[in-house]
């Protein structure tokens, strides 16, 4: 029987072996995959080019150096309607960074306080923290933002009847007015006072900025609180008991024993919360705060350059995300338990 197929020579066998080789199959499937992806990409590009030709649009980023011609409500750098589109984007980026910076700080503070309160033995404090966390985790951020903006800030009374909160904080339809420090001529804290139809001194945050900042802070704070609680609970009870046995007070135990250890558990999920906050700040577009996304929307409405603007925006948010996660990874490596 072995003599029956002398024609099936060694070369055929070799070919068969080659065809069944794992490495060959892998290479083949890669090539097929690339061909499919390339084909789809080619088809989409052809469609795009045809659509652009039909509508008479040409792609390009040259329009960024044209005059913007629209006003922006809030800005940190000099800008007027004679400025360029690129400058307008810069204004938007800075506004986004501003709200993210303060949002990260205040959401961390809120999260820390509420997370610790959630573990309090005091019944009322514990329940308040629970209700707060469950509210924040189960209401969409966008609904929270439009509620704060349209339902609360825009319904506030005029400046003369502003609602005063202890600590020289005023709420009016101009926004939130708080005491603020000044560096010129020397460091001092200014307290806002009602003079005529406006406040003098202090800092007035627009209704849009206040709603966005408060919304982002309490929403993210609710998530951070759960992370903090989980982090503290991950520390074994023996640590607390040992600290108490050594005569540490409740506060010292928390500050010197529990939190430093809990930080290691807390940092990685905290990172993703900060990233979420950065991305969520783009919801400003719904309440009219001139952040990066809403300015780019204005630009694409004016110029019709939606493809270019979307790619710019995606690139910027992607790099913001990568930078934030790089910084936090670096910090995470620093606080990591050093093993021998």
């Amino acid at each position, binding site marked *: 029987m072995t003599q029956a197929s002398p024609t099936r020579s060694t070369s055929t066998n070799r070919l068969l072996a080659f065809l069944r080789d794992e490495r060959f199959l892998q290479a083949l499937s890669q090539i097929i995959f690339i061909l499919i992806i390339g084909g789809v990409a080619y088809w989409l590009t052809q*469609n795009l080019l045809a659509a652009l030709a039909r509508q008479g649009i040409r792609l390009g980023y040259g329009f960024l150096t044209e005059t913007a011609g629209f006003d922006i409500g809030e800005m940190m750098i000099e800008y007027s309607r004679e400025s360029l589109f690129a400058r307008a984007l810069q204004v938007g980026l800075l506004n986004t960074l501003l709200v993210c910076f303060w949002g990260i700080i205040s959401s961390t503070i809120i999260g820390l306080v509420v997370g610790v309160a959630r573990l309090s033995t005091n019944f009322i404090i514990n329940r308040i923290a629970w209700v707060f966390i469950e509210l924040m985790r*189960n209401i969409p951020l966008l609904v929270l933002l439009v509620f704060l903006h349209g339902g609360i800030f825009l319904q506030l009374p005029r400046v003369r009847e502003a609602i005063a909160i202890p600590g020289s904080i005023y709420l009016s339809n101009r926004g939130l007015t708080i005491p603020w420090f000044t560096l010129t001529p020397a460091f001092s804290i200014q307290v806002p006072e009602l003079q005529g139809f406006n406040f003098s001194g202090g800092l007035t945050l627009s209704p849009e900025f206040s709603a966005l900042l408060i919304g982002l802070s309490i929403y993210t704070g609710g998530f951070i609180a759960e992370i903090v609680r989980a982090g503290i609970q991950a520390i074994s009870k023996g640590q607390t008991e040992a600290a108490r046995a050594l005569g540490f007070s409740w506060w010292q135990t928390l500050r010197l024993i529990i939190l430093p250890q809990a930080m290691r558990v807390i940092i990685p999920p905290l990172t993703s919360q900060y990233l979420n906050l950065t991305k969520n700040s783009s919801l400003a577009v719904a309440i009219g705060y001139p952040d990066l996304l809403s300015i780019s929307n204005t630009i694409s409405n004016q110029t019709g350059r*939606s493809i270019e603007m979307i790619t710019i925006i995606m690139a910027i948010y992607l790099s913001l995300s990568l930078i934030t996660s790089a910084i936090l990874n670096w910090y995470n490596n620093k606080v990591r338990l050093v093993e021998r």
Partner: protein
Amino acid sequence: MTTATVDRKILPPPIERYTVLGWVYKNLFSTWYDALLTLGSATVLYLVFAPMIGWAFTTAKWEVINANLRLLMIGQYPPSELWRIWACLYIAAIILGVSWGMWVRGSGGVGIALIVAPFFFMLFPSLELNDRLNLGGIVIAALAGFFIGRARGKSLSRLTTLSWIVYFPLVIFLVRGLNEEKQFFGVIGSNFWGGLLLTFLLTVVGIVFSFPFGVLLALGRRSSLTFVKMFCIIFIEVIRGVPFITILFMSQLVLPLFLPAGLTLDRVIRAMAGVIIFSAAYLAENVRGGLQAIPKGQFEAAEALGLNGFQTTIYIILPQALRAVIPILVGQFISLFKDTSLVAIVGLYDLLGISRSLLAQPDFIGRQPEVYMFISAIYWMFSYVMSYISQRLEVRMGVGER
């Protein structure tokens, strides 16, 4: 084995009993700063909530909700085809009832709240009689399911899990219809979907259709094929690195340009495409977590049995990985339910979008607090109940622990 455990029975810790005063002392006033905290927070609570409750019962005009209840719930869905929505709700009530009776059981509070919620809705004067009867019918269906589930116990377990999986595609089918000619069970286009109905449909479509893509992306990310792996990593990381709203803008503004001439998608379908892409990237990461949890021995055992890579994935790895990610999938369903509110920004009439268009009408100007409070309550209720049930199920079924 059992004999040894009989005499060494583990006793539960002694139950602590307090009098009312004893409880108050221990939980509210055990130290001087505890007392201070209690009094301080009680004062703050009073200062914040007293005006709010006063507002809700005196100044607030809730008529805006009553007058637009149907719009908020189902948008422009034709009233003659309302039975389909009710059918979806009845089926959901029965399956939920059975699951509750079988797995959740004892927990009373949320269950009772769920039974009471339809009665609360019956209070709206704008509802017609048959709406109220249907709401009552749903409660009865849910209760019947509950008792069946409790009586039959675990024997229905497989069937119930299966019906949950079949339920979601069924909802899409029922709401959309079949018949192209507009007679019985005709197609109701996506431009008629609105309100809470659209919110749910976006979520269901997002999860159902993103599931295969998510699994493929997760497998691709762990693949040994360099290009496949690279493509999957780039896709997942880019989608996860940008805000959801930019993906929605992309699907609304840029996607039409990539389609061949003559093919147009309406805005709801385009938004669904955005939701699916977004959800697939996040789902892929969750499934990847499930894949990583599978011990290496499983792969080696499959190889020893002579299975090839494809067979190993289909028969050995995926069934275990998917089982482990079920709780995470429920979590993702809930967060997608909340995230779909973003479609309001691109002009769709979901629960939030329809509220915003309602508030733009001259009749309802200045009614923002009432409307937003109502829809917040709706979102809160659904998402809280879903996460509560999923937590209970996780504990009961031991999913993800094996």
